[in-house]
């Protein structure tokens, strides 16, 4: 008998999603706030269950699902991001009669990501991937009367579909050469794949598919547009959550299943990581939209995390995995701050345009001190200034490059990291050093809670990283077998 308790988080979230959908029919628009609370409760329950099972190592359902340290770690990442986004969305969806759809899709996409994290079979993985993608396509277009939102959804959708197709095509070759879709099975039979030219093509197509989610250059081009156009809370989900799905999928498929092809994909990731972090940072410098800047920063961060694939030591994987968690908190927090600022701008002036323009951050420290402080911590964390989560992750990740002698990679990463400080500092400059254009505003409570939680995450990982490092190491061990 399978231990269904191990899948309880997914099941709970799916059920809560359905409950919300049904409840939405019964509850009037004015009371739909309650749905957000229900979703949050479900996520918290899921989070607790996941954490309680963090050290399980079990394969279930004919080997299609595996519960191990890696999957649990990533599930924590996904649930945390969704939780933060959900809490913030309580305010965002306030008064919106489609709140039920919003939360349902949000939870479904979370389930999708979690399935990917646990997938031990390419079919599971692909279906989970699609669940997460399709739900977020709709979420990106949630403001359907806003041309930007729809445009964002459209671009996301088209590039997403293309990537799915590429990935599926790649999977088909893998299947063809190994005769199985099971990840351990592939790992056993991958010898022939590695020896044939099709192996390279399959790997590249898989990378393209995952790279789309990770937003690696050149598969990243949807990301800035979508992050900018989508509702900010959704951008947070995309940047912090679904991006990590790409990583966990890549960990499962490339590192575990296609380990024999590692020379190929390590080279590919080396090229992609460098170009990604460099381009992301260089272009971010000249952005005036905060969301777009964060989008490019998120591209750059993906480049850093990809270094884990290049180095492929336990240390590097630990760093990469820890980085996903840190980045989840930093990026979610940053996007939520942008959301709060958008809310503030709209409450200043209903017809405000360009609510994500950096000018709106002027004097934020005076208007919303808590938000501004949090944002400062988030951007400094993104830049890798201690003692934050971003620093801790970069510390481990970059150090691993030195450990394996890839000094050139470390130097490039470090120069990029320094360059990124330029535009992060610019945000701080706008918040703290420029005069405010309005009076003090108090943050809506849900936003404030979400931001404080993210802040706590960033600082706790930065100051007391031991448990997180430990679990990231455990997760990395799964990959190194």
């Amino acid at each position: 008998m399978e231990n269904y308790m191990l899948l309880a988080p997914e099941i709970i979230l799916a059920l809560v999603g359905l409950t919300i959908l049904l409840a939405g029919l019964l509850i009037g628009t004015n009371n739909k706030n309650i749905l957000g609370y229900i979703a949050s409760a479900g996520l918290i329950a899921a989070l607790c269950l996941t954490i309680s099972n963090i050290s399980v190592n079990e394969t279930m359902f004919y080997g299609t699902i595996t519960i191990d340290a890696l999957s649990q770690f990533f599930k924590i990442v996904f649930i945390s991001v969704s939780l933060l986004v959900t809490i913030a969305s309580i305010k965002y969806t306030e008064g919106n009669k489609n709140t039920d759809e919003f939360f349902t899709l949000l939870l479904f996409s979370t389930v999708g990501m979690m399935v990917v994290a646990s997938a031990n079979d390419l079919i599971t993985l692909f279906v989970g991937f699609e669940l997460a993608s399709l739900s977020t396509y709709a979420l990106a277009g949630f403001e359907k009367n806003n041309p930007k939102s729809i445009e964002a959804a459209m671009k996301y959708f088209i590039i997403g579909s293309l990537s799915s197709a590429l990935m599926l095509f790649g999977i088909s070759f893998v299947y063809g050469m190994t005769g199985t879709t099971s990840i351990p099975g592939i790992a056993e039979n991958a010898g022939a794949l590695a020896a044939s030219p099709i192996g390279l093509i399959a790997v590249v197509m898989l990378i393209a598919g995952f790279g789309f989610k990770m937003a690696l250059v050149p598969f990243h081009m949807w990301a800035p547009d979508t992050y900018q156009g989508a509702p900010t809370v959704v951008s947070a989900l995309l940047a912090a959550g679904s991006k990590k799905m790409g990583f966990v999928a890549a960990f499962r498929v490339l590192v575990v299943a296609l380990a024999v092809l590692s020379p190929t994909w390590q080279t590919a990731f080396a090229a992609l990581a460098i170009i990604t972090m460099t381009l992301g940072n260089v272009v971010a410098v000249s952005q005036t939209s905060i969301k777009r800047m964060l989008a490019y920063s998120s591209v750059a961060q993906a480049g850093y995390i990809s270094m884990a694939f290049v180095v492929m030591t336990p240390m590097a994987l630990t760093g990469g995995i820890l980085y996903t968690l840190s980045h989840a908190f930093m990026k979610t927090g940053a996007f939520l701050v942008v959301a709060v600022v958008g809310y503030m701008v709209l409450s200043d002036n209903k017809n405000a345009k360009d609510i994500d323009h950096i000018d709106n951050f002027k004097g934020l420290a005076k208007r919303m001190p808590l938000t501004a402080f949090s944002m400062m911590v988030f951007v400094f964390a993104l830049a890798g200034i201690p003692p934050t989560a971003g620093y801790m992750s970069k510390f481990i990740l970059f150090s691993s490059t030195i450990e394996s002698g890839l000094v050139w990679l470390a130097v490039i990463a470090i120069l990029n990291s320094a360059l990124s400080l330029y535009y992060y500092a610019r945000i701080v400059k706008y918040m703290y050093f420029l005069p405010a254009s309005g009076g003090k505003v108090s943050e809506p409570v849900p936003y404030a809670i979400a931001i404080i939680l993210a802040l706590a995450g960033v600082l706790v990982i930065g100051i007391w990283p031991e448990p997180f490092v430990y679990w990231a190491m455990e997760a990395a061990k799964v990959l190194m077998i």
Partner: protein
Amino acid sequence: MAIEYLAFLIPLLPALAFVITFFFGKKMYSGGALIPIGAIAISCIISILITINLLQNPEEVVHQSFHWFAILNLGILIDPLAGVMLCMVSFVSLLIHIYAVGYMSHDPAKPRYFAETALFTAAMLGVVLSDNILQLFICWELVGLCSYLLIGFWFQKPSAAAAAKKAFLTTRVGDVMFLTGIIILFSSIFTIYNGNLPEGVYVLQFNEIFKLIPELSAMHTTILGSEVSMLTIIALLFFGGAVGKSGQFPLHVWLPDAMEGPTTVSALIHAATMVTAGVYLVARTFPMFMGAPDALIVVAYVGGFTALFASTMGIVMNDIKRVLAFSTISQLGYMMLGLGMGAVVGMEAVGVSMFHLINHAFFKALLFLCAGSVIHSVGTQDMRQMGGVGKVMPITFITMLVASLALAGFGIPGTQIGTSGFFSKDAIIETTYLFGEHTGNYIPYIFGIVAALLTSIYIFRLLFMTFTGKPRTDYGGHESPSSMTGPLSILAVLALFFGALTQTKFYHFLEGTFENSFVHVNIEHLAELGNYHLVHGHHGEPLLILWMPIIVGVAGLLISFLIYYLNVVDMSKIVSRNNVVFKLLYNRYYQHQIFIEIISLHLTYGLSLVGEFIDRKIIDGIIDGISDGTIAIGEIIRKVQTGVVQSYATAVIAGVGLLIILLKLIVEVQ
């Protein structure tokens, strides 16, 4: 005797007086002048008592030493050399302080004045008392600081501020040489001891240094292809410091400008403190010079040349204080010349030179204070606007006359009749003759004798222009108060009689400087190390040589008398702007232009501007270029993001294609 244990009070009391006067002087009588006067008076008394004690027991020098930090100590050394200097410095300073009570009575910044002069005196006393070279340097630098503060006393005057800066900077050049000397000395000692300095011994103490002279002399280094003794280098670097402080050529340029301070300050600088420090330094480290080949010769030449060079400029100056300033430079040149004569007379050179130093202190202080008295009364420093001052200021006139005679060195050879200058300056000239006799090199002698002639000319020119004849402007004038004339009189007495009374005893006393309980060096032995051939018992100079200084002195007097009293020659015709010689002299050989404009302004400042250019344009340019370049590249790259989704798809597909090709290539290479 217990008085020795009060030796530490000698510099400390004036230093305390500085603190008290500086912070609390405003509320006290006469700007707190009494505190420094009292302090210095006590110092003076202690000094004199100790010196008297020393006179009786020349062997028992006062030496006290305290651990300071690391391997350095602070200490007090009063040997005969220090003793006489102490007495002179404290005594002359005391008189100048008393004089200043009257002279500065109208200045609102009196507390600051008295505080700074007290510190000045303290620092100078510290120089004299030091038992090690580092402490001497420290006090030496403090002297420089005080001179800076005092020359720039009237800082509102741009010229005073500039002069102060010039004084400090120029002496600083010397100080750096001095410091370099100390550093090289130290590291040489370190080498001698093989890196293991003996425990509990302070190697920078003079006795320790002198002990090592043979070893130092034996160390050699190569400079510009020729082998030079380490000791010579060290000695000459010390001498470099002395050149700066004592206004020797070419670092004398600050001294004439130093007149920008109050006249009492000039007197203090020129007579008692500061400038004599250089001479004292050479005298103090005389054994090192003795042991260093060629060092004394350099000292002699620089001194002799300075004596001559400065006196030429003294002739044409119209500012009364400036004439005296050049006179000081010239007289310091004599002292250095005298020290340089150690090459033939050994230890006696120190006696001669120091004797001149003491005498010079008296008559130069007197000259300055008289000049101050005149300026105080007349209200100008320009001699062309004076004339006939002697009638309204008889005491000043008489004392000034005494001082001038002393400076010119009037006296009767072979007897004990003569002004103090006669006994010391003429003695120096005699030794230079001796030097010529023994080495065949009469250049120092010629320097000395010509300078003596010029000295006489310029000092009597001053006297005649100022005190005799008819007033050239309506300056009023009156005799100065007794607080000013009192010191004048005392100094006049000393200037007249000190030489005659003490000459032989003085030489004998100073002989004991380097042979006593503290330090025991054999000058004769050192002279061999330094390749100098000493002459003993040299009292057989021709009569003409003995009389020569007097002859030129009188000649100078006559020339001045003819020109400036009888007006036989109309100077205004010669003194025209077209006369090349006059122009050269009047513009002080254009040293100002050379030193200030070419070296400091154009060269140094130019160099620093080049540095600024490198900094801003090249180093910063690279950094800014990187950042601007990055931003520009970012601007370009962001345009790739056209917003058309098909182009994104193209990018994805092209990316996949390129990646495949790239990997194919790389994998095949591997």
